[in-house]
């Protein structure tokens, strides 16, 4: 078994909920922030570009380009937003990060604000992260007392402050433009792009929006250098990556590695499967289906590791049940804003609801696949097209599971006749 690498992102023990918050705050060195304010914004962006850091929320957009785009906007008002919505099923890596090293995120946001000249920042959290929100509020209070937030901070002599917000469970709120609408007190309905968030984001102003994990990497890059970060991991997939591993596994949890780790490595680090490996959802139910032949592929950006969520399932699982569950989830969670999304998800759900009335898989597979293509070409955002990718993949990989349902009996999951 390949040894689990020493973590650099989640090496700390939990500080939230462990009564360690004040000690943690007093012991945090803020080395990256001190170094950052001695650099120019252009130099900071050069380090980020040299690091090769790509967004860890799933889209994998290069952070250097994102911050540079905001910095170069003519509009003087800018925002910094940390995306901790974490609504993808199976994802909890940002919770782990915030429980262990929340100041890394705040430090990164202050560095971002310095770089792009922002005055206001928001940390948007999953609804259930009450304790984390309270701890962040306490940390922000101490930072204001020490003049690291607020008016004329550090050597920078500029103003920057951060608010913490929690959002109700709506999967779509994790989409950047939808998250902005939620912060604005509106329905979390995505906007078309262009314009991009770097041009018109929160309150239609240029906005740096990054995932919690992405931001957590920034202090490491500033302190140790972009080249150091880039040397971790394979080409095009630089730096450490967190993988949230759940499902039919002995020890579900977050595992940190460079992106040359494989699915087999992750499973071994987690103590092995419960049962025999049948498949895995890489980057969650909106991502990619991995089969036994994929066990040894590296979990890189190029191999669609996305946000690093891995849900493994064993050979006692019925693929039709999984396809139905995933379809129901995306049907419930789509925002209803655009006609293609609304009607296609209704039809996808109807196909799965009527699974037991089908006589063969091919027409259903063809119809579901057509809905996915239609959504890719015409829906307003990527939620519904991502949500309709997995069911056809499951049909393709496990036709026998669906055929059992056509016969009216599924001993594995039960069928709805």
């Amino acid at each position, binding site marked *: 078994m390949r040894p689990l690498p020493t973590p650099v992102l989640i090496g700390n023990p939990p500080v939230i909920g462990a009564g360690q918050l004040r000690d943690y705050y007093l012991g945090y060195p803020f080395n990256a922030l001190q170094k950052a304010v001695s650099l120019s914004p252009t130099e900071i962006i050069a380090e980020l570009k040299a690091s090769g850091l790509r967004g860890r929320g799933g889209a994998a957009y290069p952070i250097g380009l994102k911050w540079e785009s905001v910095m170069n906007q003519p509009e003087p008002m800018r925002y910094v937003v940390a995306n901790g919505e974490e609504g993808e099923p199976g994802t909890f890596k940002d919770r782990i990060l915030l429980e262990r090293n929340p100041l890394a995120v705040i430090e990164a946001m202050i560095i971002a604000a310095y770089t792009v000249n922002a005055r206001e920042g928001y940390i948007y959290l999953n609804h259930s992260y009450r304790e984390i929100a309270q701890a962040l509020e306490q940390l922000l209070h101490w930072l204001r007392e020490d003049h690291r937030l607020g008016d004329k901070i550090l050597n920078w002599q500029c103003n920057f402050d951060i608010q913490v917000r929690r959002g109700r469970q*709506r999967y779509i709120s994790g989409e950047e433009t939808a998250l902005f609408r939620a912060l604005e007190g509106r329905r979390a309905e995505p906007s078309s792009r262009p314009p991009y968030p770097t041009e018109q984001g929160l309150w239609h102003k240029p906005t740096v929006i990054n995932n919690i994990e992405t931001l957590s990497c920034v202090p490491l890059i500033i302190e140790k250098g972009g080249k150091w970060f880039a040397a971790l991991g394979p080409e095009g997939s630089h730096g450490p990556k967190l993988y949230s591993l759940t499902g039919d596994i002995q020890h579900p949890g977050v595992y940190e590695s460079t992106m040359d780790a494989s699915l087999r490595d992750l499973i071994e680090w987690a103590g092995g499967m419960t049962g025999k490996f049948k498949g895995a959802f890489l980057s969650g139910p909106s991502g990619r289906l991995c089969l036994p032949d994929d066990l040894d592929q590296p979990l890189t950006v190029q191999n669609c590791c996305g946000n690093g969520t891995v849900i493994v399932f064993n050979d006692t699982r019925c693929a039709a049940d999984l396809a139905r569950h995933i379809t129901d989830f995306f049907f419930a969670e789509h925002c209803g804003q655009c006609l293609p999304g609304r009607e296609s998800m209704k039809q996808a759900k109807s196909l799965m609801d009527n699974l037991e009335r089908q006589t063969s898989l091919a027409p259903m597979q063809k119809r579901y696949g057509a809905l996915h293509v239609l959504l890719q070409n015409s829906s307003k955002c990527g939620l519904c097209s991502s949500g309709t990718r997995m069911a056809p993949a499951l049909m393709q990989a496990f036709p026998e599971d669906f055929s059992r349902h056509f016969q009216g009996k599924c001993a594995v999951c039960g069928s709805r006749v």
Partner: protein
Amino acid sequence: MSQTLQQIISAHAGKPDELLVVAEQLMDHYQAIPIAALELMQQSLGLTATEIQSILSFYHYPVTDKAVKCHVEVCGALSCHLKSSDDVLKRLCRTLNVTPGQVSDDGRLLVAKVECLSDCDRAPALHINGQRVSAADLDAVVKRIHEVLA
């Protein structure tokens, strides 16, 4: 109208963009959005009833005229589904004699299926009034619910 309700809402007077901040504070305090809050939100935040209902319903906030004391959230997302969260919800509702998503007859208990509490490593995830509770022992969960309701 209770003073706390007024205090929570009036603290955001004139700030319609803070509707969701108000809603979260109401949820933290009341485990649901009291119907009495809607009119006060209209007046204080300067929003129409339609705007408020549109936004609250989009986010599936429970709005009720009952004084909910215990809000149980059972996660139904995929990692929890693989750990039989559907079964947990069914058994819990049967034991407590409630319908998922509906406030109980006495108005004090709400058991709801929710999507992704991000507690996937502790699946099946279950929260009681925002606090994480292990669903491994349903008898212990029921006991905890009765303690909250007492």
